């Protein structure tokens, strides 16, 4: 098992190297001149040159790349010019925020989409099936920033049910001691229920926005694999042997339909982690997505490179995890190198 994991990680290496090279090149061809931007509003050409030298941007591309890789090997991702902090520190503080939001969105998506999918499969072709499809599809049909803004307008501005869209906590709550970085979990560990409540309230709208986006793929996959399972031999046998429909659906069909759903979940998660970029912007969520977008707009290379690399590593790890999980659900599946 361990050697399989190791071998599998080894095959991910070329991917990571590819990501590093592509990101490096992509950030260098961005039109913005970092030096000019950070030299300030009154910069003379000499002042810009000075900043350039300070940032090491006056060197040739290969030289810059070598020094970037050298630093990378030491775990140094450079410093962000727009936050003034090291990228490692920024990502460490921001990644949990994104992960918490994404997981919340995913959980919400599962809770709604899996029953929808099952229902649609069981009542295949009926109006319930069509309704499920329309609902799930409607969720992905609006740009996330727009649905996010609509939710804020409705539930905060109009109705006043949701708390102000000001990030992970309202202004007068203090963040719990960081253990996992997830406010919900940390506040529970600290038995600080006031903070838990505050963090939970802040999380609802962005998680719903994101969850809506996760509906369609999960529902679609659940429906498809349920249909396949329902028409399979063993389910027919189970039905024939007089088991209740409920038992057949839950015990036999659903368990077998889970496998492809889990794969989908993994992909939905990594997709959401990337897609929450815009949600974070709308809800002033201090995650890595909004961080990367701002950095990209400002031609601030280091955070973009750090972000992409982090996401790529996460992606590789996640796929590995899914493969392992696959093995657990279905022992016949072996991790392939």
């Amino acid at each position, binding site marked *: 098992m361990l050697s399989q994991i190791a071998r599998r990680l080894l095959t991910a290496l070329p991917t990571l190297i590819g990501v590093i090279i592509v990101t490096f090149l992509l950030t260098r061809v961005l*039109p913005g001149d970092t030096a000019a931007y950070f030299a300030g509003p*009154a*910069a003379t*050409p000499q002042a810009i040159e000075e*900043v350039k030298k300070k940032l090491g941007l006056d060197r040739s591309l290969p030289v810059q790349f070598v020094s970037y890789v050298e630093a990378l090997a030491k775990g140094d991702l450079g410093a962000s010019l727009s936050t*003034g902090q090291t990228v490692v520190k920024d990502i460490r503080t921001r990644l949990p925020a994104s992960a918490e939001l994404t997981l919340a969105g995913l959980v919400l998506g599962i809770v709604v989409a899996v029953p929808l999918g099952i229902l649609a499969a069981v009542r295949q072709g009926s109006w319930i099936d069509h309704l499920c499809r329309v609902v799930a599809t409607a969720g992905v049909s609006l740009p996330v920033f727009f649905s996010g803004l609509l939710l804020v307008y409705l539930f905060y501005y109009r109705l006043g049910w949701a708390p102000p869209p000001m990030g992970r906590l309202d202004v007068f709550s203090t963040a719990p001691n960081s253990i996992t970085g997830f406010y919900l979990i940390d506040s529970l560990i600290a038995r600080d229920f006031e903070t838990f409540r505050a963090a939970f*309230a802040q999380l609802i709208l962005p998680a719903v926005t994101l969850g809506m986006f996760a509906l369609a793929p999960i529902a679609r996959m659940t429906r498809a694999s349920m249909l396949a399972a329902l028409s399979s031999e063993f389910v027919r046998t189970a039905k024939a042997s007089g088991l209740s429909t409920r038992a057949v659906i839950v015990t036999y069909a659903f368990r077998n339909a889970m496998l492809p759903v889990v794969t989908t979940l993994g992909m939905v998660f990594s997709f959401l982690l990337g897609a929450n970029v815009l949600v974070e912007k709308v809800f002033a969520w201090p995650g890595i997505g909004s961080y990367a977008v*701002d950095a990209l*707009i*400002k031609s601030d290379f280091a955070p973009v490179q750090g972000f992409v690399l982090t996401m790529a590593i996460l992606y590789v790890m996640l796929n590995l995890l899914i493969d392992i999980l696959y093995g657990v659900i279905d022992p016949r599946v072996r991790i392939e190198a």
Partner: protein
Amino acid sequence: MDRRKFLQSASVTALAAGTGVAAPAIWSPAKADARSETLLIVSESGPNNLDIQGVGTNVPGYEASWNCYDRLISHEMKTLANGTQYYDRDKFKPELAEDMKTDDMSVTFKLRKDATFQDGTSVTAADVKWSLDRAVTVGGFPTFQMSAGSMTKAEQFVIVDDHTIRVDYLTKDRLTVPDLAVIVPGIYNSGLVKKNATATDPWGLEYTKQNTAGSGAYKVTKWTPDTEVVFERNETWKGGPLPKTKRVIWRMVPDAGNRRALLERGDADVSYDLPNKDFVDLRQAGKVSIVSTPYSNGIQYIGMNVTKPPFDNVKVRQAVACAIPYQKIMDAVLYGLAKPLFGAAANAPVDVAWPQAHSYNTDIAKAKQLLAEAGYPNGFETTMSFDLGFAVVNEPICVLTQESLAQIGIKVTLNKIPGANWRTELNKKVMPLYTNVFSGWLDYPEYFFYWCYDGQNSVFNTMSYQSKDMDALIDGARKSAASGDKATYDKDVKGFVSLAFNDIPRVPLYQPYVNVAMQKNVTGYQYWFHRRLDYRAMVKA
């Protein structure tokens, strides 16, 4: 429905169901107190550096510097007709200095004896010299700003005794003293910063980036970049009366619609970067108070590159100036929240002032005629660029101008340039047509013209405009200002304004307003040349 009640009941049920633990009181009294003593500000972006002397400190960073550091001197306030507190350009008041004495070629400051830094050490002339040396040495924006007041060398700052410092002039410049009251020459705790300096960073820029080390009215106690800055009052501040606001929390909310919603629902106390439409709506709704003040020494303009055809032809530039839909821009883009700079009786100014209105106004027939005279009866094609960072205003201005120019045969393609790239493009000086804003901290006409119209062709002379007559007039105004020759000064200022209008390399559109929206219980807003908030005077009742 009462939001808090709803949340309270909802969350209590959720908690009770989820954990089986009785929920504690949701809004503890401590929180309510904190709320009344705290000023909550929301804005689009936050600082990237707490020190204005740092490398690449952004504009929000200036606000932190302004409130956390003292300078030797500051400005008095005056009250405008509409009741706004406005800094008085010509009246200085002591801050760390208790006395200022100007001589022919130097100015001497006596420091307060009781002033201390936030770590308790007292402020000495050595700290002042170290700080001013730092400002003229570190390079980049701070050094540039110091040079605008003819302060370029460390030798100019002389320690007379422990509490006396003298600034020697290299040349006589009437901007030297005002330049000591801008944000840059703050006074740093040199002992503390030096302790945290390294061989590669002798001025301790890394330390002051993350920490405030001044004697100012506030200190930053928590800073989460791009998320939040928390300021606490310095209880031993000596630079002025103790501020009423104990704590300032500054949160970054990127979406403008959300910022407005926060204000309207009373969840934020102050916001200043909203679209003009929102300010107008908010004023009409009357729930929050809005203060609008014109930028001092600042204009939004349409610039033309005079080094290349067709804009090297003055008639073409005049034609463009006659084709801009000024009033439409005022109405549909600014909603009246700006001071128009067009349609004056003549291009020859009556007042010795800047900014002021030129005589052009929308007149398509005249524009067509001028274009024909210039040899372009059928117009031409060109590109108009704008900074995407201020797209809310820039984009509609450009769209309206594009439409209007099409009427005289000039076919314009719009080009939006991301904020990061804007300065690079300006520096290249190749954009044929663009809109931009310039404003100077020091509110003197010759200062504006020196940077924007002078033949030295600085970054801000975005049109690459060069004219011997213009240079002579600007030089004359600067010299006569230093020597106090009012008659010559007045003549030269009127001269260069008139020349700028007749040659029209840049067409002033309007003087933008700084708009600040505050809850009704917040008072004490002051307009400063840097246009950032001064927390020291702000009061939340």
